[in-house]
C-alpha cells in the first residue's frame, strides 16, 4: 500500500504525515523508523490511515517549544484537526503512546478509540539514561536477530529525540497521567510485549485498573518493538481491536474442521 507524504502547519510547527486508504480515520503516532509495516498496510485496506511525525522526532527539526508531553499532545490535537474533522482511532507506539494518552485525556472529543502500543508513560525501566542509539536498539527487541533486521536510529535523530524526551520527562514515570487515566472514557487497548525491557511488567495492569474501558493484550515473545518481533501478532490484535473495540474478546474463528 503506497502512503502519500503530505505537509501541514499548525501551532507554529510544520510537520509531515503519510496517508493511505479510505474510511474511518485512524491516526498513528509511530516510532521513528517503523512507519511502514504489515500493520500500516492492513489498516490502510480498511481505514483512512494517517501516520504523523511529531515535532522533534524523525527528520523534523528539533522541538524546543513544547513544554510537556501534554503540551505536545495539544499541538498534536491542532495538527490532527487540520487533517480530519472526524473522530478517529488513535494508535500510539512507545513515546507516541505517551502523547496519545495525553491526547485522549485532553481532547476526548477527537479520540474515538485509543490503542497504546508499548506505552512507557507508566513505570518505564531506568535503562535509557546513558544508553547509546545502538544499545537502545538492542534493548527494544526480544531477539537479537530481529534487531539486526532493523536499523538503529542515526546518532543525530537519536540525540534529538533523546533531548526532547528528557526535556519533557518522558523517560520518567508520569504520575500526572496515571492520576488522570480515569478520565479516558473511550475504548482503550494497551498492548505490551511480554519481554519488554523498557517498561516494567507491572505497567499493563495499571491501565486496566484505572481506565474504565480498557483491555490489555500481552504479546508473547515480543519486546518493546512488537512490530519488529511479532509483526503478525501485533497486526491481528490491533486490527481486531480497531474493528471491534472491547468486543474483540468475542471469538469469531470457526472450529469446524470438516463440515
Amino acid at each position: 500500500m503506497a502512503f502519500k507524504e503530505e505537509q501541514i502547519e499548525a501551532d507554529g510547527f510544520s510537520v509531515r504525515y503519510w496517508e493511505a486508504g479510505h474510511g474511518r480515520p485512524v491516526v498513528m503516532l509511530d516510532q521513528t523508523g517503523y512507519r511502514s509495516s504489515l500493520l500500516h498496510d492492513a489498516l490502510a485496506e480498511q481505514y483512512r490511515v494517517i501516520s504523523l511525525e511529531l515535532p522533534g522526532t524523525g527528520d523534523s527539526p528539533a522541538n524546543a517549544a513544547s513544554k510537556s508531553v501534554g503540551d505536545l499532545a495539544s499541538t498534536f490535537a491542532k495538527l490532527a484537526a487540520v487533517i480530519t474533522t472526524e473522530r478517529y482511532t488513535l494508535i500510539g507506539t512507545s513515546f507516541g503512546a505517551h502523547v496519545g494518552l495525553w491526547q485522549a485525556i485532553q481532547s476526548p472529543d477527537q479520540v474515538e478509540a485509543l490503542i497504546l502500543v508499548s506505552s512507557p508513560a507508566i513505570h518505564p525501566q531506568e535503562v535509557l539514561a546513558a544508553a547509546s542509539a545502538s544499545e537502545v536498539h538492542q534493548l527494544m527487541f526480544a531477539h537479537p536477530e530481529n534487531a539486526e533486521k532493523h536499523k538503529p536510529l542515526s546518532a543525530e535523530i537519536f540525540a534529538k529525540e533523546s533531548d526532547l524526551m528528557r526535556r519533557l520527562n518522558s523517560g520518567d514515570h508520569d504520575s500526572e497521567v496515571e492520576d488522570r487515566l480515569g478520565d479516558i472514557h473511550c475504548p482503550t487497548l494497551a498492548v505490551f510485549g511480554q519481554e519488554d525491557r523498557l517498561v516494567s511488567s507491572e505497567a499493563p495492569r495499571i491501565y486496566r485498573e484505572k481506565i474504565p474501558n480498557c483491555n490489555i493484550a500481552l504479546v508473547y515473545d515480543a519486546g518493546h518493538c512488537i512490530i519488529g518481533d511479532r509483526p503478525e501478532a501485533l497486526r491481528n490484535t490491533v486490527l481486531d481491536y480497531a474493528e471491534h473495540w472491547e468486543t474483540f474478546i468475542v471469538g469469531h474463528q470457526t472450529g469446524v474442521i470438516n463440515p
Partner: protein
Amino acid sequence: MKASYFGQMGYSDRSTFPTTWPTPPGYTDSKTSVQSYQDGMEECEFAEEMGFDWISFSEHHYSGRIPTGTPSVMAAAVAERCKKVTIAMLGHLLPLNNPVRIAEEVALLDNITNGRVVAGFLRGTPNEDQVYSVNPAEGRGRLLEGMDLIIKALTEPQPFAWEGRYYQFRTVAVWPRPVQQPLPPVVVGTRSDDTIRYAAEHRLGLGVSFLPVEQTAVITDKYHAWCEEAGWTPGPDNIVYRGSIYVAETDELAREWFEGLQKTKPGPNIPLRRTVSEAIQSARAGTDFDLRGLVAGSPEGDVVGNSLGINFLGGPDTVAKQIKEFHDRCGVGVIDLPFQQNTVDHRGVMKELEVFGKNVIPQIREL
C-alpha cells in the same frame, strides 16, 4: 532430603496385557479398575503414614500402567485422604493441554489443599504426542509458551489477552488465586538445554527422570550453572529426581525379585511400532522421514521402546546409598519413587512402602 511417592494408580492386571500402546480400553474390567484406584489411594495414605513428604501425580494416557490422564482429578481425590503431604503434579503435559485450564487446575488444587501444591510442566514422551493430535514438531514451542502463559495466568491480578504463537486468549482471569504467593513451587521436567535454561532463568525447579546418576549430573550441573548466572541458588526442593525402585528387606531378596523379573522377559516400556516412533522423532527433530525405506528394513510387527530398568534396587542400606549418590552428586533434594513395578502387586507395594518408610527415610532425612 525428601521422599515422594509417585501415585501411579496402575490397573492391577496390567502385567497380563500385551505390550502395545495404546492399550485397548476393552481390556479393562470396571470392578478391577475401581479396586485398582482404591488400592492406589490406600498406598498414598500409607506412604504418608510412613513418612513420605510428597505424593506425586503424572499425566499419562491410554494405558493401564499409569492411568491418570487427568492427574488433577486424581490429586484432588488423594488430597482429601492425605492431609499433610505436598501434592506434586509431576506433571502436566503442556503441549497437549490448554495452558489456562492447567493454571485453573493448579490454582484450584492449591486452594483445596490450602497451599500444598507443587506444579510440574513437561513435554511428555513421544507416544503422548499422539494424544489430542498435537504436532510433535510444535511440542517444544508449545511447552515454552505454555509455561509463560500459565505463570502469567497464575500471577496477573488483572484480566489480560494473550497473543501467542500457539495460544490466543482474549480474556484470561484465573480464579481462584493460588494460596501460595506469588506462585506455587514449579518443577520443569526436562533433559533439554533450552528448558533447563528456562527453569534456571525463571527461578523454577528442575525434574529429571530415570537417568543414571552421571547423566543426571550433566543436566543438574547445567542447571546449577545457569541458576548462578541468573543470580540465585536452588534450594533442596528445587531438584527432583524420579527413579524406579524395588526395595526389599535384604539385598538378596531384592536381587531375587529382579532375576525373576528378567525371566518374565518384560517387553519395552511404552512400545510403539518402529514406523510410528521414527515418524514422531523425525517430526520432533525436523528431519526427513523415509517411511517406505523403514518398512522395508524392519521385521513385521517391529516395536521399539525403552527397556525397563530399575534405578534403585536392594535392601534399605543399599537403596539409601544409591539415593545419597543423587543427592551428593546432583544436588537432588526430593526423590520421587514409582513403586508399582509391573510384577509387584498391591500387597507388595505396601510391603515396600513399609520397608522404605522405616529403614530408608530415616537414612536420607538428614541429607
